């Protein structure tokens, strides 16, 4: 049984006025944090019903992009439209109505540490719908079953491993059966078996309930295996976009280095820093 087979009553979905195939449209996005420019006129489209992968080096701003799309951060310039609505112009109430339809799996899990696993997943359901306890229980246990953690329902988040916490967070992100889910590194800390299950679960969820999935991950092979479309971002710009096949054929040295995981190439492993020998010498002088 998949997590998507039973759905709570949906809020009346307002279909986008122009039900276009693009769910998230990012145009001219600029964002910086304490002098550091993270996005510099970024353009990006996320298509409805597809699994879109966003990849890029650590610190490229992938998490930041998800937070911008979710309205947790405000862009300095440019616009972000989700389902035809400009995030920047929404009132707080409208933003909350939109967020009910967006699930997000945080990189850190972000589980409520005062509630056990069961209550964590029940939380969004309790907040937004009045469901009889028996129905709620069935829904929650089904979500937990899908991520293989039904037996952990009574544990507190503090006694979960990192990988388990992330799977619980995934179950919570899909609890409201959103139209779009943003996964921030769902595969980190998963063993090969649960990794395989999660990879197919994400694909399955996407197809079974016509969801749109936004997948941020460093696991290039797994990610490309389920993505319909992939974007590579670095240094605030879009480096490359296309289907996994196109990415695999791409010959630019940057893309090759990233996809093949080579230490040397146009991308530097090191955060910008002065020469190592020079730094060590100047330390010694002090």
């Amino acid at each position, binding site marked *: 049984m998949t997590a998507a087979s039973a759905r709570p009553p949906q809020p009346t979905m307002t279909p986008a006025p122009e039900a276009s195939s693009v769910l998230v449209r990012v145009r001219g996005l600029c964002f910086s944090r304490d002098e550091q420019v993270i996005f510099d006129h970024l353009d990006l489209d996320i298509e409805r019903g597809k699994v879109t992968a966003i990849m890029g080096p650590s610190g490229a701003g992938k998490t930041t992009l998800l937070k911008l799309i*979710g309205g947790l951060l405000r862009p300095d310039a440019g616009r972000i439209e989700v389902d035809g609505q400009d995030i920047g112009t929404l009132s707080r109430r409208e933003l909350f109505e939109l967020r009910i339809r967006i699930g997000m799996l945080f990189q850190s899990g*972000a589980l409520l540490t005062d509630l056990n696993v069961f209550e964590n997943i029940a939380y969004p359901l309790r*907040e937004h719908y009045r469901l009889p306890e028996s129905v709620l229980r069935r829904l929650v246990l089904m979500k937990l079953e899908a991520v293989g953690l039904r037996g952990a329902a009574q544990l507190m988040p503090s006694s979960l491993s990192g990988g388990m916490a992330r799977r619980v967070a995934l179950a919570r992100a899909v609890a409201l059966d959103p139209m779009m889910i943003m996964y921030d590194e769902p595969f980190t800390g998963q063993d090969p078996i649960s990794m395989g299950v999660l990879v197919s679960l994400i694909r399955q969820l996407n197809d079974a309930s016509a969801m749109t999935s936004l997948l941020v991950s460093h696991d290039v092979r797994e990610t490309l295996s389920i993505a319909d479309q992939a974007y590579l971002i670095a240094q605030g710009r879009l480096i490359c976009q296309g289907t996994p096949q196109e990415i695999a054929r791409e010959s630019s040295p940057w893309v090759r280095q990233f996809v093949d995981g080579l230490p040397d190439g146009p991308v530097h492993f090191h955060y910008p820093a002065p020469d190592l020998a020079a730094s060590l010498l100047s330390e010694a002088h002090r």
Partner: protein
Amino acid sequence: MINALASLGHWALNTLATSGRSLLLLLGMLAGLTSLLRRPRLVLLQIYSIGVLSILIVVVSGLFVGMVLGLQGYYVLSRFGAAESLGVMVAASLVRELGPVVSALLVAGRAGSALTAEIGLMKTTEQLSGLEMMAVDPVKRVLSPRLLGGFLSMPLLAALFSAIGVLGGYFVGVGLLGVDSGAFWSQMQAQIDFSNDLVNGVIKSLVFGFVVTWIALFEGYDAVPTATGISRATTRTVVNGSLAVLALDFVLTALMFGD
């Protein structure tokens, strides 16, 4: 010179911005109070963790403060042959001043610091952002019940502090120093005024409870999301909360009892 001016200006701007943010947060929390009518459990939980869990420290401190008042009061009053007024003196100082003020200081130290650390940690671990993304307003759901809980707990704690303090004073004055028991109670009954003393004391503790909880919640919500940030915020809660209580006590006393 220029540097000093610049840093003064910087400080002033920062203070102004902080005040603005704390005021905005307060408005948000007040707006969230109405939604608590449907979720009284959230408030009860906070009354438990802010109020009930502070009972022990309040009772013990109240007892000692009352006993000290009994001792000091007896020495001064007996010099004027007015030892029978000990009851009035102990009760008036407790109900008007020491009850509200000391219990507010205790709450700022015990419950206020805990609130700041809790909210700060929820921010650091992205639990607040997580709530936002679930379309749940953390200010309404997490902060408002705590504000109301602190506001309601404070007068009860202050009353408890005063009651235990009077018993402590009685124990020392009547039990150990031989003041007449009947005089102790009857003078107290005759001299302590309901609206002048009791109501004013309750108003004070309501104000203190509100301000201490507000400061604690704001510091946690505004904390820099790091370990150092939270520890600084916790310190600021205790320092600012205590100073605010003492300063407000002066203002309120002047308004209530000065004529």
